[in-house]
């Protein structure tokens, strides 16, 4: 019914417009093509409070064409601030297991998570994957100190076990063109600026990319405690002493029996 009414309304308008049909009067069609990739994060800020028990980075977006193997494909890669890490190998000395040789990695992403519609080796050539570092084993990690690949492997395995490095996070596709991935963030996550890259892969090539960022910040009591402990260690030390003494005294007064 409404459709017919709309037509009835439009017809006179069109008739009125017809005599003076000029290019200027036709509403111009936007000349820009729709973006081949649009992505966004559900939040630009994750707050680590005293009750923080982990969270997630929700990346979502849409592609221009249908998402399927051989069509449009999406890779999401999130990385956290770099940190210097020491990997120590335990060795047996006189029957005791002690920390032995150590290798140092100066720029280790404290967080690294990847989600993709298909495993990257199936959609991209090795050269391109290596260049984009799309794989836990492709992260650039110059090694100092002890030599040998076992240190790098151990770093990868331990980071994975802590949930701080994750590949193969599932990517959900709905409606053919909408995608979203939930990258898990464990409670041990480092604070700082996180980068999220979203890549659109078409016919074995990256044709579009979008860079997003979010901040993971300590807030509330936890943030203040950590800041004071770092910036004013003397004040913090004295505060710890007084608080513990007061709590001990208070407790014994409150719970005194008999």
């Amino acid at each position, binding site marked *: 019914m409404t459709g017919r009414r709309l037509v009835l309304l439009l017809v006179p308008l069109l008739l009125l417009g017809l005599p003076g049909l000029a290019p200027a009067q036709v509403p111009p069609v936007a000349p820009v093509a729709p973006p081949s990739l649009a992505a966004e994060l559900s939040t630009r800020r994750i707050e*680590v*409070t*005293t*009750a*923080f*028990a*982990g969270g997630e980075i929700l990346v979502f977006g849409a592609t221009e064409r249908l998402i399927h193997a051989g069509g449009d494909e999406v890779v999401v890669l999130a990385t956290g601030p770099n*940190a*210097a*890490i*020491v*990997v*120590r*190998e*335990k060795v047996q000395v006189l*029957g*005791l*297991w*002690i*920390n032995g040789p*150590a290798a*140092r990695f100066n720029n280790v992403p404290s967080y690294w998570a990847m989600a993709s519609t298909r495993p990257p080796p199936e959609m991209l050539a090795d050269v391109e994957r290596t260049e984009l570092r799309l794989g836990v084993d492709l992260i650039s990690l110059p090694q100092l100190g002890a030599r040998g690949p*076992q*240190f790098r492997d*151990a*770093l990868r*395995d*331990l980071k994975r076990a802590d949930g701080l490095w994750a590949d193969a996070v599932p990517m959900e596709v709905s409606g053919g063109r909408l995608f979203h991935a939930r990258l898990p963030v464990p*409670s*041990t996550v*480092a604070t700082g600026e996180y980068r999220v890259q979203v890549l659109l892969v078409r016919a074995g090539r990256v044709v579009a990319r979008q860079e997003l960022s979010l901040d993971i910040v*300590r807030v509330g*009591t*936890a943030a203040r*405690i*950590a800041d004071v*402990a*770092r910036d004013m*260690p*003397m004040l*913090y*030390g*004295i*505060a*710890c*002493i007084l*608080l*513990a*003494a007061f*709590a*001990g*005294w*208070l*407790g*014994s*007064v*409150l*719970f005194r*029996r*008999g």
Partner: protein
Amino acid sequence: MQVYLPIAEMSVDALLLLGIGFGVGWLSGLFGVGGGFLLTPLLILIGIPSAVAVGSGANQTLGASVSGLIAQWRRGNVDLRMGLVLLVGGFAGSLVGVQLFAWLRRAGQVDLAVAVFYVVVLGTVGALMVRESVGAILRRGKGRKTRLHEHFWIHGLPLKMRFRKSRLYISVIPPLAIGFAIGLLSAVMGVGGGFMLVPAMIYLLGMPTSVVIGTSLFQVVFVTANVTFLQAIQVGSVDVVLTLLLLAGGVVGAQFGAAMGGKLRGEETRALLGALVLSVAAALLWDLLSVPDQLFVIGPVP
């Protein structure tokens, strides 16, 4: 309920911490010790980094000992002069201990050092306690010659001083040395050291039992305060949220433990405490000797 520990940078179940605090508090109330030697290994066991466990353990021991010190002070059971001499040694010892700890941390051997210290110290002290108390139980009923205290050669060293409350006139060198050793262990192990200090005061210094507990608490409170302060400045490993949660459980547990401890006889209590100390040492030794689950460990560059 998960709670985020700002210095350890991890989430832990608050109920678990309260429970550990309660359990350790209960045992410390039962046996009349600070309980730091149980607390620090338990914290390491649940995944708290060794450095944080030691720093916060010392801080917790401080809180747990304060009320005992106040009570003993009111009863006049603190030999202040002896306490101050022990404390001079204790401050020097904890200062050296924290430097040693910071150096071990840089060398990546904190875990090993903490474990070895625990195995050696707890193993020795536990064995001595069990031997002494079992001997006392066996000797029970037989007449024993009693003396005010025995004199050793160490009492005759120079720099003699009169400790009126302890009824002693001895050299200050042995209490200084004992204070130093306890301070050092306190810094590396995160304990108050009461379980070693009390026997040392009785058997080495010959102090009367009435002032031993109060005077050892005096030393423990101030040395753990010093360790807390130095660890906070030099290592940055005191987690006040962790400390307060442990204390919250601990002060309640200690009251229950103390109520129950009154019903146990001295020798039995010491034998039980000795067995507990030995079992902690054995558990840590087992950890050092068994093949670790992970042959690699990662950590921040110190």
